[in-house]
């Protein structure tokens, strides 16, 4: 078995230098300390993304992106196609799980200050990947063309319209017209299966290359403990040790997804009727709840600004700060404590959790 592996590798190496990759992977190590567990979340997000791509491709075999057929085709997948219920429910659940692990990955990187020099670009590519994931979630949600999705999209794209100057253009661009119609569905489908995957692939390649190039960051406190001799520097090889552990996690995730699909299948809903009034209690998906709830609390006017606009600007500002945090918190790169930023992170996390909980009441 091993010799077969050797032979294959030699053949590839002679053709495009595969040996260098193998050499690198063999020497790649992962630091071991009390925060090592957080290192798994990036790989988990990547794994769930792969699950999304695979189940998404399978769904593409039967899905039809027009208002007349979209709902019926999803119903067809759920009822007529063998294991269609499994593929579709896994796709829907995995989307949510992936965004959750992305949140965990992002916050763990933030709190462990892995964004500090020289990993600023890794953080930035990661943040853009995160926004792309949210875009995947928003565009994918509309595709079954049921009532909840239709009205959630209406509300969501409406908010885009309140951006100053570009707002109306942005709304028309997103919706493919003034209102949410079949044109919106076609457009969102295009975003979901072509545009966003393309962008994600490029950014993911960059992100992963950077991670390989720069290696795994060690949290500042642990680093200090090592340099001060209080703690030994330990690591394990990525291949096979860390990877095997990664795979355990991935298997566990698959088990969870299968259980969710079989016990809590994703509902079909009712076909969207653009002329029917909006049902009570429309909500966006959970990852948008905190923004949704914030906008509900804002008064209709703040100083001279319309409430909604002020809210949007506030969130944009917060997002900009968050994306640029490696540059703002440059002190962390110099090895100095940045408790303020830790506190800011706790505040942001708490805000998101509390407002999401309030939205669910």
């Amino acid at each position, binding site marked *: 078995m091993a010799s077969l592996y050797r032979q294959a590798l030699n053949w590839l190496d002679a053709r495009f230098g595969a040996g260098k990759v193998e050499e690198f992977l063999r020497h790649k190590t992962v630091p*071991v300390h009390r925060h*090592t*567990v957080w290192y798994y979340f990036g790989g988990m997000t990547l794994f769930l993304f792969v699950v999304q791509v695979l189940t998404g491709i*399978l769904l593409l*075999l*039967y899905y*039809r992106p027009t*208002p*007349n*057929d979209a709902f*019926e*085709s999803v*119903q*067809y997948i759920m009822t*007529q*196609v*063998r*294991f*269609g219920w*499994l*593929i579709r429910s896994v796709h829907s659940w995995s989307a949510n799980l992936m965004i959750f692990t992305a949140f965990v990955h992002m916050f763990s990187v933030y709190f462990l200050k892995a964004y500090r020099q020289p990993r600023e670009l890794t953080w930035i590519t990661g943040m853009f990947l995160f926004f792309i994931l949210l875009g995947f979630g928003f565009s994918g949600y509309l595709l079954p063309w049921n009532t909840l999705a239709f009205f959630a999209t209406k509300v969501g794209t409406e908010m885009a319209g309140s951006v100053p100057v570009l707002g109306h253009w942005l709304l028309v661009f997103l919706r493919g017209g003034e209102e949410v119609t079949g044109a919106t569905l076609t457009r969102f489908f295009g975003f979901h299966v072509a545009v966003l995957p393309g962008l994600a692939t490029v950014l993911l390649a960059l992100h992963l290359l950077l991670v390989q190039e720069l290696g795994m960051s060690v949290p500042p406190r642990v680093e200090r403990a090592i340099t001060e001799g209080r703690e030994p520097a*330990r690591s*394990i090889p990525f291949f096979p040790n860390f990877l095997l*552990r990664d795979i355990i996690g991935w*298997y566990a995730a*698959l088990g969870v997804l299968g259980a969710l699909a079989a016990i809590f299948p994703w509902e079909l809903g009712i076909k969207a009727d653009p002329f029917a009034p909006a049902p009570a209690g429309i909500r966006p998906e959970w990852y948008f709840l905190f923004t949704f709830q914030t906008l509900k609390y804002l008064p209709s006017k703040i100083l001279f600004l319309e409430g909604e606009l002020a809210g949007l600007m506030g969130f944009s500002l917060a997002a900009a700060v968050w994306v640029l945090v490696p540059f703002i918190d440059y002190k962390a790169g110099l090895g100095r404590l940045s408790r303020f930023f830790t506190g800011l992170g706790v505040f942001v996390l708490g805000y998101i959790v509390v407002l999401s909980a309030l939205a669910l009441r």
Partner: protein
Amino acid sequence: MDVSDQIPRGVPQPSRRWVNLLLGGGVLASIGAFLYPAIQYILPPLVAESTSRSVVAAKVGELKRNSGKIFKFGSHPALLVLTAEGDYKAFSAVCTHLNCTVQYRADLREIWCACHNGLYDLAGRNVSGPPPRPLETYEAHVQGEDVVVTRNA
């Protein structure tokens, strides 16, 4: 998960062979458990298409003049009528009163509901009895050998 610190050497472990067997077997079994549904999924089901908005209701010549036929449209019954003048007309067969299935009455030349004697004319309008609203109308046209009924979006 730093196992290497926790296991003192010398503790008996299952032999290499058993571990490899368990690992290989487990991985193969799990891959099988994933591939089986995926392959089943890819093979097209018996009902080849999702119920779209158009259905072949009947073949040309199947209906005599001044008669009707109930057929399945999506998940609801629908009615195809060939009028005495030779026109095809199609409607939802769900009565707007209490959802009974309506039928064509050749003697009345109207659509009749057997539950409470509701009547609809050949434009689907509720003309007599309890039905409060007209029947939903569909388009029926001939395509070659088939009479195709489509729902207006």
